């Protein structure tokens, strides 16, 4: 045994024979801290895992914070302060509330909640184009020339359905990101996300068309609904086509939402106290995070908050410091803290990622280009251990040195947290049987 048994992280467990999952998880952190373990120890710990399958559902909901365009790992969660010039980030690294863990100085608020998250520094795949990478990350499948796969939110909608009048899958501020891959793909359109369709930071923000317009009463709307059903039934329908079924489903959900006071309340972000709104940050992303928390409280299964503009082929540092990282820092840290304080973090999984990382080399336009070899993702809640780092990259931040995690692994884990089996088969409209995820292994470090 070559590691330091007096480490505070190990003071309660010094009997190797009684190693638990928690210890193993900590070993990941130890590895990051630069301590080393012998091969036999690792094997022993892996043996302690054997036979331990994926737990039942640990999460009721997922909040996906989607960094559209591919965030720079250097200017967020994998700073390389010793990288050579031409590669080194303009920003330094700061300490966090986890000893030995440093992140970019643009993330001071996240630094205070790192004890509640697991940081993955070796998210790795081979798709270097946005649309292909978005498809891979959001669906768990590499792009296929003849099929668009359903994204995770759509699969979760199908598997778990909604709670009450709330749609199961909601996109904030809208679903127009990731080249349209945050959609139902080959599944019926009924599993497409509901777009809130506005900026929650706007003082007049409300979800359109949920409140009855002037001159209309609920009673009259009910009458209209009955009338429409009669009109539709009298007409020879399209023989139960997917289009017709999706439309019926959306009409049903629309009526549910219009007639539900709870739904209107969930979207009413103005109810929040001023301090709370400010803690999340008065910008689209921060208020999106706050709205996501309200929606999860109301039973929504899958909420995506997208934060775009990370495709920094030029002026990466300027964009990072300005419009990109500070809102992320404020919004995500507030969300984790708030969910924790409300006791919601234990059954809400928060995932933050984009389609890929960015090049270590800074290009002539002061930008960073696409880099699928490695990138960062952050996980919190639903049994995910805090203060942990999975994987480390080489000194340039260019390649994983160990523990590569694939998009398929991430999708498999996300589904497992919700109790969805990712090796289940769906049938495409062409009667082709396909698994929900193309392989993938549960990321055991995520608890």
């Amino acid at each position, binding site marked *: 045994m070559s590691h330091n048994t007096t480490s505070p992280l190990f003071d309660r467990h010094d009997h190797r024979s009684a190693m638990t999952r928690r210890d193993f998880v900590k070993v990941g952190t130890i590895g990051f801290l630069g301590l080393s373990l012998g091969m036999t120890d690792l094997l022993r710990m892996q043996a302690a895992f054997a036979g331990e399958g994926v737990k039942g559902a640990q999460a009721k909901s997922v909040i996906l914070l989607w960094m559209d365009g591919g965030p720079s790992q250097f200017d967020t969660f994998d700073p390389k302060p010793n990288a050579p010039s031409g590669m080194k980030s303009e920003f330094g690294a700061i300490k966090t509330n986890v000893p030995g863990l440093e992140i970019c100085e643009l993330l001071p608020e996240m630094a205070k909640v790192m004890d509640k998250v697991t940081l993955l520094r070796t998210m790795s795949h*081979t798709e*270097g*184009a946005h649309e292909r990478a978005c498809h891979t990350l959001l669906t768990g499948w590499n792009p296929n*020339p*003849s099929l668009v796969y359903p994204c995770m939110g759509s699969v979760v909608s199908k598997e778990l359905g909604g709670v009450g009048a709330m749609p199961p899958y909601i996109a904030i501020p809208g*679903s127009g990101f990731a*080249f*349209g891959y945050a*959609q*139902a793909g080959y599944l019926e*359109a*009924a599993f*497409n*996300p*509901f*777009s809130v*369709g506005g900026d929650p930071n706007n003082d007049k923000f409300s979800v*359109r*068309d*949920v409140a*009855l*317009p*002037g001159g*209309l009463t609920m009673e*009259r*709307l009910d*009458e*209209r609904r009955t*009338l*429409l059903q*009669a*009109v*539709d039934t*009298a*007409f020879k*329908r*399209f*023989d139960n*086509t997917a*289009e*017709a079924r*999706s*439309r019926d489903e*959306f*009409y049903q*959900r*629309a*009526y549910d*939402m*219009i007639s539900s006071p709870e739904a209107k309340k969930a979207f009413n972000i103005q109810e929040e106290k001023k301090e709370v709104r400010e803690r999340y940050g008065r910008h689209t992303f921060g208020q999106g995070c706050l709205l996501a928390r309200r929606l999860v409280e109301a039973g929504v299964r899958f909420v995506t908050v997208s934060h775009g503009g990370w495709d920094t082929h030029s002026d990466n540092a300027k964009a990072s410091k300005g419009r990109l990282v500070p809102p992320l820092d404020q919004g995500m840290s507030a969300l984790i803290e708030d969910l924790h304080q409300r006791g919601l973090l234990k059954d809400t999984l928060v995932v933050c990622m984009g389609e890929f990382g960015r090049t270590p080399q800074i290009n002539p336009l002061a930008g960073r280009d696409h880099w*699928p*070899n490695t990138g960062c993702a952050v996980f919190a809640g639903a049994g995910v251990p805090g203060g942990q780092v999975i994987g480390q990259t080489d000194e340039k931040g*260019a*390649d994983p040195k160990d523990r590569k995690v694939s998009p398929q692994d991430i999708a498999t884990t996300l589904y497992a947290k919700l109790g969805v089996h990712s090796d289940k088969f769906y049938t*495409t*409209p*062409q*009667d*082709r*049987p396909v698994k929900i995820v193309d392989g993938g292994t549960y990321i055991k470090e995520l608890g």
Partner: protein
Amino acid sequence: MKPFLGMRAAFVLLPVLAVCAGLGIAAPGREQSLSPTTMAAARKPTPVSLTNDVLPVLTKIGCNQAACHGQQNGQGGFKLSLRGWDSAFDWEQIVKADNGRRVFPKNPARSLLLTKPTGQAAHGGGVVLPKGSPEYRLLLRWLREGMTAPGDKDVYLTELLVTPGERVLPRPGIKQSLSVTARYSDGTSRDVTKLAHYQSQNDAVAAVGADGQITAKNPGESAVMVAYGGEVETANILVPYPARTPIKLPAAAAAAAVNASYIDDLVYRKLAKLGIALSGRTSDAEFLRRVYLDVIATLPTPDEVRAFLRDTDPQKRAKLIDRLLDRPEYVDYRTLRLADLLRVNGQHLSEEGADTYYRWIRDRVRKNVPYDQFVREVLTGRGSTYRSGPANYFRVAGNPEELAETTAQSFLGTRIACAKCHNHPFERWKQSDYYGMAAFFARFGKKGGPEFGEEQVFVRRDGEARNPRTKQVIKPKFLGGAEPTIDPDADRRAVLADWLTAKNNLDFARVAVNRLWTDYFGKGIVDQPDDFRVSNPPANAPLLDALARDFITHNFDVKYITRVILNSETYQRSSEILPGNVKDERYFSRAYPRRLPAEPLMDAVAQVTEKPDRFGAYPPGWRAIQIRDSRIGAYFLEVFGRPKREILCACERSPQPNLSQSLHLINSGNLNNKLAADDGRVARLLRRFEPWAPAARDKRIVEEMYLLTLSRYPAKPEAQILLTHIARAKDRRKGFEDALWALLNSEEFLFNK
């Protein structure tokens, strides 16, 4: 890791052993036998070639896949070009890189190139090459011969022959072997069946093993892609549906077809091959609504519906098509579709540029300028973006690479972006194709002014496209075609335009007619219309070719070919689903119902309610289909999937339904105000029929509402549903508002069926 297939094969790729291939399995359909040239080549051993022998082996055993050494940064320090596309690079990597550590010339068998894949040395990818196998011996021979480097004078692959090219497999379970022959520039050919890479487009129809053996699985059609040495071909496999009734063209429909056309014949042949039944003909009312919405994006008025249904002229459908093609709304709608294609967006062109571009397109459509001429004018645009429409083409896409991608995708339906960084892994596009196209756009320049936001496009005498790695100049090369000789004073863009739009370039016409077909059927013969590739073959290739030839013969006359399409029985087929065509979503055995696109739907609501919308600074009465600049819009248009004209993709227009659409139609203040307005449809109808006797009056108003929204008379029970509601309503006018609301929200209104 894929199973290693060469293992069972005792015969191999080497020319010297090629004669053994003649012992290949005598499988059904295998027509290929060794040609004399192959035999000749086989007798005379030639040095092992990296490009033609070694890399195909590395590809087959998976070394240079995107998941292994073929990835962007290599694997374990060893990087190969993706699927062996760059043999010069691979030679460097294998022989020279890292001080030549991968080869050991003194004792070739101890080279890492052999000891790693055979598992003699630790290898993260495992054992992929059995020691002593024919493939192993081939690599060894290359090493022993001194690792010949690829050179310019090397023999190269010219053609891939796949037999059979098409096969009907009558029942699931039936197997078919493929035979693949590679032809080389020196006239030799070689059986590469064991080395080619196979992929089925739809493995639920036809599964393919790594040895090229196909097994029919379920009824349908699937192309099997065969890739080898950078070339791609397909074998088309059909598995017919068990026909419940004999498939034949309904005699009545055939007789009724005024312009009985080749379209129907070719569609029918394909359906017969697959055993898919044909639905019947649309009723007059269904046809009327469909053709109005498709051609002029406008609902027929109640008077137009009545007149058409009353008309007994057997030619009335053809005559209606002619009338619609002459209406100004046809010009509006066709201009809208072209403005989508060319991405007329003030965000990038400024307001005046977008306006100039739009007005130019509209003028060309109004004059029915032949499509080849239209495209030539676009590609050679120059001058001020505020004076000349086509100059804006060079602003939407602003540099040679973007222009190459845009031109290939817009007019050849081909997505070549992958080839910017490497040869396309599964298609025939090579990096030289990409930069060869870019080279046509290397000699134009832009300068700002004189007005704010204005730009001048001009042609220069210098400028070249360069390979991004070697920095070598790449000469202009037609996509998938020749390198033309170009006069230094010539506008390279004009040379490209002439080749593109030439009458012998069938691809240009195919893409053009397929776009038109997509406009009128909601689905292309190739779907999506900008995704032509070997691995996405047309649903009906003879049909696409016949249309393309007809279009060329008629000098790219858009109205002519549109007329041919609209007059076909295929266009006029009902959407009724029969037991024999339930599964058909591809071969046009029936019409596929489509939700109205955003702009026509919004206009239809305005037309029905008689309450037009206002768009930006456009004058009152301006319709959504007439909006010039995609920045101008409305929430309605956004929610129903109007494209922003930001990205180069036909998929930007979304036909998808979503919850926001339902909420908006059910509950928006906008729609409710239109229904309740004193100068709106409901109030006007009530006033108009006020003098009538009460019983006749309400019935007539309901009839008008049906004609307005659904372009047909209500059936008795349908009218009764609305009349009962109105009779019960406390407020009669509100009762009618509810009735019109229900019609506007009905499935039949929202869809073009």
